[in-house]
């Protein structure tokens, strides 16, 4: 079957199998920034935004997203620049292996849009679904608070 997806502002018509997940579709057509960590909606590595909301692509059928606006990590920066969240993550050492980072950034973008001035606890609560095994989370929390501050000052 065919679905029409708007991925990172580009409309694409994609041939899919019935039962195919958005994670499978996106990775197959080249959006490798969407990571496959668990298949049980537990780790958050596959997070993408659908119509601006963070969603786990491993448990979302592609057919259900027909006609919707999908944004992956590839849509949050270009070759010449990084977002303030990406910069802050690098400065604070919030990315070690980097496997969880696309999902983390996508969820954080949604957080800062909803709540431009989050407390540490609000960051932690909002990002609970994004597991990281490398950092112990401390550096990521610091980074997101820092990025929020940076964004507010603009």
């Amino acid at each position, binding site marked *: 079957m065919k679905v029409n997806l708007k991925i990172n502002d580009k409309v694409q018509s994609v041939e899919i199998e019935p039962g195919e997940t958005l994670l499978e579709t996106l990775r197959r057509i080249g959006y490798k920034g969407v990571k496959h960590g668990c298949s049980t909606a537990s780790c958050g590595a596959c997070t993408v935004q659908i119509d601006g909301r963070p969603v786990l692509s491993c448990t979302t059928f592609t057919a259900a997203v027909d006609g919707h606006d999908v944004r992956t990590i590839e849509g949050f920066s270009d070759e010449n620049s990084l977002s303030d969240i990406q910069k802050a993550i690098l400065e604070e050492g919030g990315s070690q292996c980097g*496997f969880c980072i696309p999902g983390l950034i996508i969820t954080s973008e949604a957080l800062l849009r909803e709540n431009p001035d989050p407390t540490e606890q609000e960051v932690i609560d909002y990002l609970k679904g994004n597991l990281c*095994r490398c950092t112990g*989370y401390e550096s990521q929390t610091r980074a997101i608070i820092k990025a929020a501050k940076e964004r507010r000052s603009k």
Partner: protein
Amino acid sequence: MKTLAQEKLNVVNTPVEKVDGKALVRGKPVFTDDFDIPNTLTVKILRSPYAHAIIKSIDTSAAMIEGVACILTYKDVPHVIYTRAGQGYPEPSPYDTFVLDRKVRYVGDGVAIVAAENEIIAERAMKLIKVEYEVLPAVLDFEHAMDEGAPVIHDEAEITGAYDPKHNIAAHYEMEIGNVEEELKKCDYVVDEVYYTPNQSHAMMEPHGAISYFDPNGRLTVITSTQVPFHARRILKRIFGVNCRVIKPRIGGGFGGKQALHVEPYVVAVTLKTGRPAKCIYSREETMTASNTRHAMRFRARAGAMKDGTLRALELWGLSNTGAYGEHALTVFMVGGSKTLPLYNKVKAVKFGGDVVYSNTEPAGAFRGYGAPQGTFPLDSILDTLAHKIGIDPLEFKLKNSIREGETSPIFKIMGEGREGVDQIINSCKIEECAIEGAKEFGWYEKRKRPRIDQKRRIAHGYGVAFAMQGSSIPAIDMGGATIKMNDDGTFNLLVGATDLGTGSDTILAQIAAEVLHTKVEKIIVYSSDTDMTPFDKGAYASSTTYVSGNAVKIAAEKMKEEIIKAASEIMNKPVYALELDEDKVISDDGDTLSFSDLQTKLFYTFNQRQLEVTESFVSEVSPPPYLVSFAEVEIDLETGKVKVVDFLNYIDCGVPINPVLARGQVEGASAQGIGMALFEDHVMDKNGRLVTNDFFTYKIPARGDIGSIQVRFAKSYEPTGPFGAKSVSEIGLDTPGPAIANAIFDALGIRMRRLPIRSEDLFFEIKKKGL
């Protein structure tokens, strides 16, 4: 001997950005599964549903449906015995593993390799393979592996290197200095207790995976998520008799889980059979149930001390579960003693030993800390108990008896990794600063004056401290190499076999090179871990990369500096002694300059033409331990037994941190994994040996908010044998959370928890028993 104050540092000891950082935060296709090679077969593994069985018959004919390229069983792969452990050669682990065998030894053991055009076909085919098993009695409880009449797990004739496989003993070790029995009799206080640590899962975010293919010239190439590319190449050669190139792309975490061959033999078998590219990416369930865990261990721990707080004797006697196969069996067990007991070097007698047994459970392997967390938990816990018995502050008791700069321990010489170790004098040890400054920072003395139990709110607070050491590399065994090549645009290529698995080693190695060559990290272009392109390196394990690979890079950079000055002296017509490097150029004492770019351009095209390139290697004679003192504050809910770590402060002596932000991240991350092992990460097996906890729903790793604050402070330390004063930092953080938290619980409630993870229900029943 040099000190930190004598080093003038521009790049080292600064928080430069990770060299692979931008690619990672942009989500670039840098991991194994991100590589799409045309015409690739999807590989799936049919796994045993039984813990112990013989394959009586296996019929794949019905499974050869359209789209299946091949199905391989034990009849179709080389019958070569090997160890999956990626270690120096010859490996200290027993050879007890085949790619596929007629016998399966745990639930999840490989039965058949299925390669198909896509995943759907591969999965359909797997269901059509008919296997008839003769189910054998299994050893599921490792404490009964050596029982009389226990089923023999490794009865294959080919096995070598195992201690006593007929009794399921993969390895055995014992050593004693002095006479522990006699010394304990002389002690005023003696503690004798039994402790357990669990089969923790690595739970790295990126599952195991590998791709293999023939390159256009027919060279077999393997892209794999590994910590040990050079060992992988060597072991693949042993199994299949073919040479290959192993490429390590970015790795999504390993923590020791990728210090073994998991997927590589399966894809290589398919590529050799079909000639086609083959890719196998494990599911989370396979990663959790069919790769490696930490070795679960039981230790009987004994210690004796005098009234004045002098520690007199120590003993750890253990039993380790290596599961179905013996990768890292002996070496992980030995580290349980060799990287814990030298910390208390003033004892009159010390003893360590025990057995590592096979059982029909998931194989254990290397895991961050490599036995030291298993040994530190009982050791630090009994010292804590002893201090309470004597009536002195546990911090002061542990500090008083611990090792100091200029001292040694006879254990360094007696215990190495699987063999004798090396003598060493401790050149850097700031454990006093860690303990004293850490206590101030944490508020140790003030907090311990507070009341512990608040009956009104039904909560208790407790404060614990734990001491740890580790090592920096496996001395006299592990080697790292580095090549530096100068380019005419003023950059350098740094080629290293060292294996960055997310730790940031590419970055800190670039910092070391940039420091020596008076340039910036941006001018050092790092290529790492490609066995055809980079020099050899043992791989990422044993806390060795900063120390061994770092020293190799430093030596290579110093050689390159010499080469640059020699060439510049010819071009500038100045004596060598009049020249120095400064900010990407050579300067002379009379003010002449020659930029690196001009220098190499001249050498390429017009003057004494040559390519400047050097390769150097390093192997260490010693393994300088880092030291760590960790303080934990816990809050315990008396109604449920739930423990929350409120505050966890690490004061670490890792020498000079090459990159303070990355070093801090290593300690924070290790603390979190240690807190997971201490409180959350609990595997449950059903009565047939199947792991019920096989995903992130059922196996609980710490999530955001599960841990209060983790703090890291660095002691002012300088290791004279390390590159720019550095020692290792990556593993030690995992050693302390278990005992620090258990000690804090004891401080709060007077209840000594001797089994990790400390489950709330277990603590709840202890609280009930005590009537709190």
